């Protein structure tokens, strides 16, 4: 990856996404293999007067702890863990798996146990995020692993990612401000709707969003970005949804996922691949049976699925829902250690109705 691109990306993230201020403690965590990006971010943060709290991670260690840890070792939240979560004013998460299957040998119930035991930390993190006390952004970088999952060469995948980020634009921030304005128009429309009905192949799902706030994902919390999202009234979801793309989550492949909802709760699930993993995730806690998010992808630079939800959920012309944790700032009240996004393509024949009226067809808002 070219140094100039990494510097440009680091600059957008620090100045536009996180709006780093002098004295901010900014935690940066992600695979240590992305050293050049850590360097670019460290430079930018330091120039801006912040205190970088650098936390490069070793995937091998993560896998060892998850697969070997006893129940007690997995569920003990230490003072070190608490400080990592409590101390930073701002957090940048780097998603960059060299090998997306690095957790494939870890039984799903171990991952679920780990996530569940960190609920007290993650709940509090989301609350502080919602209140504006802290800021967070997750950035997806091109890696060989992601490229391989997407069925692309690394070079082609790199072009795809930086294109989706608009890093090469003469003024990337201007692009993202423009995207923000376009998404704001859609939100204005969605905000008036109580009940959304999503109809597509093997999909007819009704979610209730009355009184919930739609949020504008314009590059501040995810990068690349481009979606509008809210948290539905989680006990009112009904119908079924079928997910269009194969995906990889925590090292597990899944495909052909279908979910049926009654009174908000998943009452039946199917998967052509990864069924056991799906069941494990659903059983993590009570909240993992309910939707914490419904959203529309609006990044038109992203048109192909990559098996990676960081990109796929942004595909212009798709919708996605997430099982598990909701967003308090949207008005969501569902709590869970899980937040698992699954994407449904609306681009060929999909329809969205708002309170009975057609508002989007073939992935485009009317």
């Amino acid at each position, binding site marked *: 990856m070219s140094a100039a691109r990494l510097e440009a990306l680091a600059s957008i993230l620090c100045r536009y996404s996180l709006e780093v201020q002098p004295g901010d403690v900014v935690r940066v965590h992600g695979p240590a293999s992305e050293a050049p990006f850590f360097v670019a971010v460290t430079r930018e943060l330091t120039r801006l007067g912040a205190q970088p709290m650098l936390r490069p991670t070793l995937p091998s*260690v993560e896998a060892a702890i998850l697969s070997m840890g006893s129940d007690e070792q997995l569920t003990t939240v230490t003072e070190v863990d608490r400080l990592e979560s409590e101390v930073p004013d701002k957090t940048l998460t780097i998603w960059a798996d060299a090998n997306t299957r690095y957790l494939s040998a870890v039984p799903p119930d171990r991952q679920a146990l780990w996530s569940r035991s960190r609920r007290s930390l993650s709940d509090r993190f989301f609350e502080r995020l919602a209140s504006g006390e802290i800021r967070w952004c997750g950035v997806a970088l091109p890696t060989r692993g992601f490229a391989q999952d997407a069925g692309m060469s690394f070079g082609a995948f790199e072009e795809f990612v930086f294109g989706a980020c608009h890093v090469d634009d003469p003024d990337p921030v201007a692009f993202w401000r423009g995207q923000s304005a376009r998404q704001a128009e859609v939100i204005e429309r969605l905000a008036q709707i109580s009940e959304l009905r999503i109809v597509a192949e093997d999909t007819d799902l009704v979610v209730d969003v009355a009184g919930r706030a739609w949020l504008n994902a314009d590059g501040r919390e995810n990068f690349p970005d481009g979606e509008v999202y809210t948290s539905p009234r989680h006990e009112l979801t009904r119908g079924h949804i079928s997910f269009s793309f194969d995906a990889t989550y925590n090292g597990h492949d899944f495909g052909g996922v279908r979910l049926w909802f009654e009174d908000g709760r998943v009452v039946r699930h199917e998967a052509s691949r990864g069924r056991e993993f799906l069941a494990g995730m659903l059983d993590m806690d009570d909240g993992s049976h309910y939707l914490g998010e419904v959203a529309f992808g609006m990044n038109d630079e992203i048109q192909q699925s990559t098996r990676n939800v960081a990109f796929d959920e942004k595909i212009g012309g798709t919708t996605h829902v997430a099982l598990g944790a909701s967003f308090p700032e949207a008005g969501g009240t569902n709590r869970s250690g899980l937040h698992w996004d699954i994407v449904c393509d609306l681009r060929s024949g999909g329809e969205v109705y708002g309170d009975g009226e057609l508002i989007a067809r073939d992935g485009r808002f009317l």
Partner: protein
Amino acid sequence: MSDRRVESLARVICEYSLRVEPGQLMLIEAPALAEPLVLEIVTRALEMGALPRVRVAAEGTQLAFLSEAAEEQLTTLLPSAMPEMAAIDLRVAIHSAWNTRELSGVDPGRVAAVREAQAPLMELYMRRSAAKELRWCVTAYPCEAFAQDADMSLAAYEDFVYRAGWLHLPDPVAAWRGFAETLGAVADRLSGVRTLRVLAEDTDLTVGVAGRTWVPCNGERNFPDGEVFTGPIETATTGDVRFSFPAIFSGREVEDVRLRFDGGRVVQSEAAAGQELLRQMLAIDEGASILGEFAIGTNYGVQDFSKQILFDEKIGGTCHMAVGAGYPETGSTNRSGLHWDMVCDLRSGGEIHADGELIYRDGRFLPEFAPDLSPPQG
């Protein structure tokens, strides 16, 4: 292919050096290139019921921070640093590097400023360690950069490092336990000595050690290990010493250092190369020209000078002394921002006399003074 010796090193550190107990919170700090050793230590710590947490550094980030930071940023500790140091039960620091000259372009004053800002952190560390609330171990993971400094290939350097830890033996833990016992006896013998005189080429140095405590270093806080040290009486050091190996300060070498002491203080200093740095460092504060440490290296599994002080100060058959800060546990009262170890080879013709009696010759204690310290053959 994984190297069994890495697993063995992790085992010795967890079982022997740290004596890991269930439920203990362990922090492992390392550059990311030490991943194989980090992973083995995590694995062993998990098996022993501990809670390992890992803090690795990514290549280049330290230089990026040091190059860009304003004074205030350099000297500000992260708000998590002190509470974290107060919370951990075990700490492992792994030395390894991509390039030992990485910080050569950074003003040494900036590095010193960072170190100074960390003083409260170090103080808490030492206090908890002295109170036996925190156990720690410093070790090294072989890397190309260290191998290059040692004039070795990586494969040869790996052999050097693992032999230094006696990891080629069938039961290294048993060997270290035996060594700890013998070294304890040596420290006991030395504690009765009032004056030590070191004789070697261009060296005739007298060091006062009466009433000072000798500390045996048996692999608990450094690994590999093997030395016995004390803090000399601040006003007593007299005579000349010529250091056989280059003195290294933050990656910079000072060659053929010769010091003359009188009344405990360096009164004359000379070096074949790097004399300016030597004089600058000796003058940084009052304590910098006084010995804070005198030690005898007792690891006979280390025979080569490698420019890593963790190994060099342990070479069986050498002595070393540090100008600057002494360790309070020895009784030393010398305070300084400096602690600079320099090594003197005693293996050919060197002698140590204790209160006038010869106790050490050609790099070995005489059998009538102390038992043999060689590691078992394997």
